[in-house]
């Protein structure tokens, strides 16, 4: 397959203009680390954005950074770490989950996929941290939206639209986003031996407390063994607090009392906490040889019920993040990859189910992203037309027909 690697915005616009003129669709790649996420793109050419790399602006005291879309995420995280700052939404590394090496993604890819980690609970997702962007649309026109300041309502918030659009609307060239301080201390309160329903109930109570919980996960016994410090402990329910030391000590003690009503408890210090939550963030507990991995976003309190509903029809292993609102589910299902059973269960409570990991032939057959109701899908199709009328950018990556 031919690869085009534009060096400037003008060259990028020319490449897209050429694609429009010759009706030759392009596959858009930042660093390619998430190429296996989404439907396979049938394109004659790859548009490689790795030349759009580098940090243009980093002002730690303004809590803002501007970088080229192709900048390696690892470079950005290293720069931020030097100032004890980070992307607050806890950028996950899906490399191993998607069958590749870790640490390869770009900042553009991270935002284009709108990823987030366990701190989604309190800090939001990538979408909540993007401040503005420059891009070239599928009309081969360079445009921008947003800015580099946190508070901005000037015009439509197209930044949010770009987040999670998987390069199907425009090719991001440059992004401005929020950066935030790294918490001084982290504590994790663990409760052991809970079943799914008890765990979701316990996490719900913790999240209803005033202790500013920034992570709430439950690893059933079958996957807990694969988690850091989880061996032999059975099912593990983990609740995280972050902040200055006097604060985390106080809140961890209070949460230990709260979770103590559900089972035996223990507390992880900062180092063990970081390892555990990194594993949860990167879906490490499910990185076995599972053929398929589903990601379910549901109302948090419904998490356990959804899992029970699916379990009546399909064998799988699973764990919960976001207090039950995120379910990761690994399965060897064949046929429709379990899509009917999984999505029916999700539809009953309201939510979406994404087939994050699956062989290419499965992703070509089974809708990777949750099917949308007619009026919403027609609206999305009109939005696609508004940005990429000839469907030259990542055609079909999200939905057939987009």
């Amino acid at each position, binding site marked *: 397959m031919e690869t085009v690697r534009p060096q400037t*915005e*003008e060259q990028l*616009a020319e490449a897209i203009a050429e694609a429009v*003129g010759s009706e030759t669709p392009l596959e858009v790649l930042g660093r390619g680390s998430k190429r296996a996420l989404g439907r396979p793109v049938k394109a004659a050419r790859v548009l490689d954005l790795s030349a759009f790399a580098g940090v243009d602006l980093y*002002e*730690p*005291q*303004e*809590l803002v950074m501007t970088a080229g879309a192709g900048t390696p995420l690892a470079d950005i995280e290293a720069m931020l770490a030097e100032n004890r700052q980070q992307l607050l939404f806890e950028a996950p590394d899906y490399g191993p989950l998607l069958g590749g090496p870790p640490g390869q993604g770009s900042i553009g890819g991270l935002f284009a996929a*709108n990823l987030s980690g366990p701190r*989604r609970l309190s800090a939001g997702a990538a*979408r909540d941290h993007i401040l503005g962007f*420059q891009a070239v649309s599928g*009309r081969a*026109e*360079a*445009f*921008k939206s947003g*800015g580099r*300041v*946190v*508070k*901005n*309502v*000037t015009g*439509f*918030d197209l*930044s*949010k*639209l770009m987040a*999670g*659009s998987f390069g199907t*609307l425009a090719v991001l060239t440059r992004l401005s986003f929020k950066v935030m*301080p790294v918490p*001084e201390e982290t504590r994790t309160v663990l409760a052991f031996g809970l079943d799914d329903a008890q765990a979701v109930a316990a996490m719900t109570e913790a999240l*209803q*407390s*005033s202790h500013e919980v920034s992570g709430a996960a439950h690893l059933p016994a079958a996957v807990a063994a694969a988690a850091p410090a989880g061996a032999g402990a059975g099912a593990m329910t983990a609740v995280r607090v972050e*902040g*200055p*030391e*006097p604060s985390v000590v*106080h809140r961890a003690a209070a949460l230990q009392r709260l979770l103590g009503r559900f089972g035996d408890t223990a507390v992880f210090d900062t180092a063990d906490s970081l390892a555990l939550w990194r594993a949860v963030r990167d879906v490490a507990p499910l990185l076995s040889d599972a053929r398929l991995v589903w990601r379910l*976003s*549901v*109302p*948090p*309190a419904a998490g356990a019920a959804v899992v029970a509903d699916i379990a009546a029809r399909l064998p799988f292993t699973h764990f919960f993040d976001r207090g039950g609102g995120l379910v990761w589910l690994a399965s060897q299902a064949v046929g429709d990859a379990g899509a009917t059973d999984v999505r029916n269960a999700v539809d009953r409570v*309201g*939510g979406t189910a994404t087939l994050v990991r699956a062989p290419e032939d499965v992703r070509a057959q089974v809708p990777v*992203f*949750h099917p949308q*109701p007619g009026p*919403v899908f027609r*609206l*999305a199709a*009109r939005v696609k*037309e508004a*940005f990429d*009328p000839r469907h030259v950018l990542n055609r079909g990556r999200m939905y057939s027909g987009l």
Partner: protein
Amino acid sequence: MRMPDPDSGVLARRSTIAADLRALVPDGVITDEDELRTYECDGLSAYRQLPMIVVLPSTTAQVSRVLKYCHDNGVKIVPRGAGTSLSGGALPLADAVTLGMARFNRILEIDWDNRCAVVQPGVTNLAITNAVQHRGFYYAPDPSSQIACTIGGNVAENSGGVHCLKYGLTTNNVLGVEMVLINGEVVRLGGKHVDPDGYDLLGAVVGSEGLLGVVTEVTVRILKSPETARALLIGFPSNEAAGDAVAAIIAAGIIPAGLEMMDGPAIKAAEDFVHAGYPLDVEALLICELDGPEAEVEHLIGRVQAIVEDNGAVHVRASTTDEERALFWAGRKNAFPAVGRISPDYYCMDGTIPRRRLPEVLARMAQLAAHYQLRVANVFHAGDGNLHPLILFDANRPGELEAAEAFGADILRLCVEVGGVLTGEHGVGVEKRDLMGAMFSEVDLQQQQRFKCAFDPDHLLNPGKVFPTLHRCAELGKLHVSGGKLPFPDLPRF
């Protein structure tokens, strides 16, 4: 302010349209001139226009039927919440139906386990907090009009407040909406789950100023109130010192729940009005609120005190009771009416700037004030760079309103020039519409309008707002490919 030319054909059919709408919403159509007068302006009262007709639906089905009717008959719609917009977002049009959402005033569900509330758009911002506070919860965004403004209006404007540095804007606190499209279709975007698959249309609908659809239900995140909150009142001899202190607090990794700044004229006006105990011998005042468990707040109060003293603070006082904290805030929260007492009229601006440019922006603003011979008082969401200059003028003096508007426009251009934006939380509306070119290229604006066309191809929803020039959607959609190539005009450079 030039608005789209009224459609004489629609005006001629006014009584037919009113009768048709009355069939759709039997008890909710207003045509009487005296009653229409209530709706002639919003919070930006310098601009007034009687609406052609006001419709007050009370169900989603009615909204759907009204929109479809207007769509089929080419009638424009101006959606309206409580009418507190400071940018003219709800300014009526002579040939449009103003769609008032006040009857959508019910809280539909409080879902404690999923920590969210499902409410109708006409519920006020404060009513959400009032409905959940008996169990210690609250709704975080708190625009200063929260007693009156509605959640539907907050969604339309992506409203902020003094706590957004830590807790985010409306967009970060809304989980889902039900919305009626101009063709009458009802869509649900988001829900009680986060980050659903597909385009984040919800993210783009929040802050869309009524140009994309009419929201009929909103699901918001509710948060547990912090255990405790304390505020510091900090005086500085200069704006520079205050600005440095703000930067130093944030550089130390502290994100306060609120971080507000006032300049000399604002301090004096506020103190004269509410007697909050503000020091009058300082040039800049910071209010820094810290919330969380008591142990954390104690710890952070100490750290912030040390930081501000290192940065030249000459007056530092920590609140010891909630009453005292409320008093610290009372001056800031009443800064607008306080300024209203010292001037017949004032004009509130809303730019955002990179924080560190504040001293420079204030100095240039003082030059502009001298040039226009008008006074200005400044309140500033220092944590997130959102600046509210209040320009004092007297509308009864010939030329002063125009001078105030020109002064305001210069301030906003200055905000853009230093890397900021035209509006941080009040919206573009009609007020900043003609300044959009200072921030965006024609290509940028056309792409925004193409997005609008995906929702409203005939520009029937709130036309004349946000965009300085209305392009027909058919024209915007054209792609001029010839000989297998797109023509390649001068690309905008950044």
